[in-house]
């Protein structure tokens, strides 16, 4: 490992390819599976390159103890954690300062999207656990959390679409991997937007960046966020259009059966109608 550090890596080669073969503005592969847990109100499993996250959402439900309730809006409790085996050296199972900070900023990013004012005195509890990692776990968690919230049917202004941009070897790159994040001049800038309006809900940066580089990085990031947005929407559509197609099939089948039954009844000799059938169903409700 020590030798590797001294060696000067070419982060982008003459053909514009990065160490893992990607182009400068190319994301790693993203796989999104909503509705994977039966008990949670909403859930999502998401793979982003080597990063793997599982997210579950409960709520809006009564916020307890009562004194934490806000009569004007719902609370958002976002918990980001890394499994002990998700990193090269085993992580202490106790949450560290890093996890606490990420939980806070990601929770705030999601608050920007949810119609919190519709659910006073409640809490929306989100937990995101990372099981494998290779740079960019917070954006992985945030992308999945946003899908899980939609899966839970929580009304939102828009999905939250995140991405990390940064610099390695003097190049502004989209979605850095661990090797690029370890570059001597590395800059890491995780961000998230509400794609419909372009509003920024998460922005962090560490490293040294010139103003020109910042602009370039931000624009590249917005482009990346929009690609993530497309994938999030596709995953949700796939999940819910398939389900509704199945439901449609069920409805059509039932309708056909009903038609058949009616035909059979029509063909049969008419029975005298009883008074009971004249009575409206649930007649006392109006």
């Amino acid at each position, binding site marked *: 490992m020590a030798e590797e550090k001294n060696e000067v890596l070419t982060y982008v080669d003459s053909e514009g390819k990065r160490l893992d073969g990607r182009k400068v503005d190319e994301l790693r592969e993203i796989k999104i599976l909503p509705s994977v*847990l*039966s*008990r*949670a109100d909403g*859930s999502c499993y998401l793979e982003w390159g*080597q990063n*793997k996250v*599982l*997210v*579950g*959402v*409960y709520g809006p*439900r009564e916020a307890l103890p009562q004194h934490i309730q806000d009569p004007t809006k719902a609370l958002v409790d976002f*918990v980001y*954690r890394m*499994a*002990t*085996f*998700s*990193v*090269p*050296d*085993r992580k202490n*199972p106790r*949450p560290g300062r890093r996890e606490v900070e990420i939980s806070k900023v990601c929770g705030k990013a999601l608050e920007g999207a949810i119609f919190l004012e519709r659910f006073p005195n409640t809490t929306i*509890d989100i*937990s995101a*656990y990372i*099981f*494998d*990692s*290779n740079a960019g776990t917070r954006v992985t968690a945030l992308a999945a959390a946003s899908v899980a919230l939609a899966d839970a049917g929580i009304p939102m202004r828009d999905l939250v679409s995140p991405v990390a941009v940064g610099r390695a070897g003097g190049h502004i790159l989209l979605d850095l991997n661990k090797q690029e994040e370890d570059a001597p001049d590395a800059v890491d800038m995780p961000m998230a937007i509400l794609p419909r309006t372009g509003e920024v809900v998460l922005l962090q940066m560490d490293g040294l960046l010139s103003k020109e580089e910042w602009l370039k990085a931000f624009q590249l990031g917005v482009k990346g966020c929009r690609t993530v947005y497309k994938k999030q929407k596709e995953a949700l559509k796939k999940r819910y259009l398939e389900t509704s197609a199945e439901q449609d099939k069920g409805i059509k089948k039932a309708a056909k059966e009903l038609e058949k039954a009616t035909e059979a009844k029509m063909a049969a000799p008419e029975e005298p109608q009883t008074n009971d059938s004249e009575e409206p169903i649930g007649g006392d409700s109006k």
Partner: protein
Amino acid sequence: MKEEIIWELRSDKVKELAKQGKRIDGRSFDEYRKLEIETGISENAHGSCRVKLGETDVIAGVKFDVAEPYPDSPGEGSITVGVELMPMASPVFEPGPPRADSIELARVTDRGIRESKAIDFSELCITEGEHVWFAFIDLYIANDNGNLFDACALSAIGALLEAKIPKFEDGKVIQKEFSGKLNLKKKPVLATISKVAGVLLADALLAEEKASEARFSVSTTENEELCAFQKGGSGTFTQKELDQAIDLAIAKGKELRSHFK
């Protein structure tokens, strides 16, 4: 509170059905739910496994780390099992330090593996009295629909079966390079039998657990050895019931073990 009333109503139904020889999901009393085992789910883990027992969902990962041996066993490494009930797994799980439930799960899983002698701890020794391997087996509960005990034990074995021990050079663990596979000599499997309205049943659903008087977990090996027991719940078992439960646990252990290669 609303939750509790619903569970109580469900319990009545579960007990009523048990008396008629039925279960709420139509299984027979000795029938397990569908078991799915997926290994290699985390590249950074030294061994990993996800087990789905019906809707119950557990993710396990193993990490080896070098430590000083215990003074009373200078030539032996060891294992440590941790269980985290992730808040997503149930509306009642909360983030925080492990509670009694998760500690019991971890300790029962630990005993099943440790006492079966599936791992020869002396093989985990690097230099006597100085460096030994500790296998950290961490289990994360993703969805609780009953029988976490068996799902935890299965996921731990699944992760250990594919676990590789890293290289150790100049007093340092070299990540992503391995000296060899962990030698797992046996596959201990836990089978938990619950008693509902006086009836013994295997692989209880959450609704059945809530309705049960007591549970009895038995860890067995392929040689039909019994390596760990755990009785839980406030109800009682007769000796005859325990014998029945052990026989059932051996038979079910065999069946569950066959899911691993």
